[in-house]
């Protein structure tokens, strides 16, 4: 297990009259090599959970194991840099973190901090920029002149260039147009499939979660309500009602087909497979 939370709790404003327990006794194991989604209403503790993965917040109670790093409540941390190199964190509205004069310099900033030589950092930066579809003639432009979507892709390249083993993305598609969002998701899928990165996505977009994330974690009021296969969650109407989640369109369609007498296997999750199975039944 590359990431495991053990009875971890985190409290905001601990000594104040308005202290707030953001994470409450979290036990969670996130699997290696797959895309996991974290969903839950605003204020459910998603972002707090994510910030623990980079030791930006340290647990008040319990412990957390990430790859070979062990974080225990109340202990001083010594391996912040190697941990942050191995776990790349892309924040919500990451486009606001750009600051260098040129795009390439900004993307090379992370690798330089993690000890790569200037040439190596630039090479990694160029590679990462190509991966996120930023054309070469923009490398020397100022990041502040780019469009919103381009800025976000540059920010993500800044994390990819550090070559992390785990990539965590907080609302990566928020505020993007549908086309841009689709491209972004395709990028994560290819990072997962081709470069074997473990990917964790915090999202509000149930359609995206259903279509691309193998497992899903549902958080509510700082507690884990569900962790398991995404398909099992979204096909269970009782669970959807309980966690107040919207049914993805494909699931609605699938359920309507089943109610009308079609037999669909558990593999029929995507439109393509559903179409194939129906086609066979219609032929007969």
């Amino acid at each position, binding site marked *: 297990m590359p990431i495991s939370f053990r009875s971890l709790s985190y409290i905001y*404003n601990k000594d104040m*009259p308005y202290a707030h327990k953001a994470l409450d006794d979290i036990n969670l194991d996130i699997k290696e090599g797959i895309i996991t989604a974290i969903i839950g209403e605003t204020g459910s503790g998603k972002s707090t959970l994510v910030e623990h993965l*980079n030791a930006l917040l340290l647990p008040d109670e319990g412990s957390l194991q990430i790859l070979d790093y062990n974080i225990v409540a109340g202990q001083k941390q010594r391996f912040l*840099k190697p941990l*942050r190199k191995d776990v790349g964190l892309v*924040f919500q509205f990451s486009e606001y*973190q750009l600051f260098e004069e040129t795009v390439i310099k900004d993307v090379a900033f*992370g690798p330089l901090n993690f000890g790569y030589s200037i040439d190596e950092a630039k090479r990694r930066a160029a590679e990462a920029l190509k991966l996120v579809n930023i054309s070469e003639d923009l490398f020397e432009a100022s990041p502040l002149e780019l469009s919103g979507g381009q800025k976000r892709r540059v920010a993500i390249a800044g994390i990819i260039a*550090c070559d992390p083993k785990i990539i965590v993305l907080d609302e990566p598609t928020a505020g993007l147009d549908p086309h841009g969002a689709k491209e972004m998701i395709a990028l994560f899928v290819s990072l997962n499939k081709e470069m074997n990165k473990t990917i964790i996505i915090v999202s509000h977009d149930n359609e995206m979660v259903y279509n691309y994330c193998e497992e899903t974690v549902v958080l509510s009021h700082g507690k884990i309500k569900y962790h398991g296969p995404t398909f099992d969650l979204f096909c269970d109407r009782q669970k959807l009602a309980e966690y107040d989640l919207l049914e993805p369109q494909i699931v609605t369609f699938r359920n309507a087909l089943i109610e009308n007498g079609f037999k669909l296997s558990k593999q029929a999750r995507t439109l393509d497979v559903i179409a194939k199975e129906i086609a066979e039944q219609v032929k007969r």
Partner: protein
Amino acid sequence: MNNMVFGKYIPVDSLMHRLDPRAKLIGLFLMIAAVFVPKSWWVFLFIAILITIALLCAKIGIKMIVQSFKPMIMMMIFLLVINTLTIRTGEVMFMIGTYAIYRDAIFNTLFVIVRLLLMISITTLLTATTNPLDLTLGIEWLLKPLEIIHFPTHEVAMMVSIALRFIPTIIEETIRIMNAQKSRGVDFENGRLSQKIAAILSLIVPLFSVAFERAYELADAMEARGYVPGAKRSRYHILKFRFTDYLFILICMAALAVSIASRFYL
């Protein structure tokens, strides 16, 4: 950064929170005067008891008030040192080596320190129980008489309230950008000077660009809703003195009266 206590608003509901901000401002001035007039320890004790009662009514822990004293410790030590060096009247209390420490020096310092502590408690009480926006409304009202000499009270109040409104936003933004840069391997605490400068730069540049963006957005949003500087505006939130507000001011006036009287009778 989030641990600053002095001047922080504590959003709970209490008797003190519900008082009119103008009443609390007037009360603040009366009580500060009441702290600075007397020369008797008994009056300080009396005021301290009043403040404790107010704290209980405000549902603010004593712990928080004690925390707000922390930044003052250095100043108190400084005061004590200066006073023991300069005040050389009264009887000798004790000797440090061959240097005499005088009774007046110690007592004068204690007096000043107690005054400061009381004053900080009163101010913390005001800022902890009053929403910053209400506070600016109160200040605007208090500045009203200056309009006779064409002082732009409303504009000043608007600027102050925008500034106050954006402090938490900017702090939040700062933490967010710092976290993002930490994730890219920036170390804000350790490192050589050149590394530290690079670290600060990676924070300041995005912060400025965000702040400007916010400012433009806010200006557009205000204009879109018909804001014209200097125009007469009606108010959604109308301040109203109630019985408890008058009672509160009366208690503060009484405290001031007691401390003035103490100068003549104690």
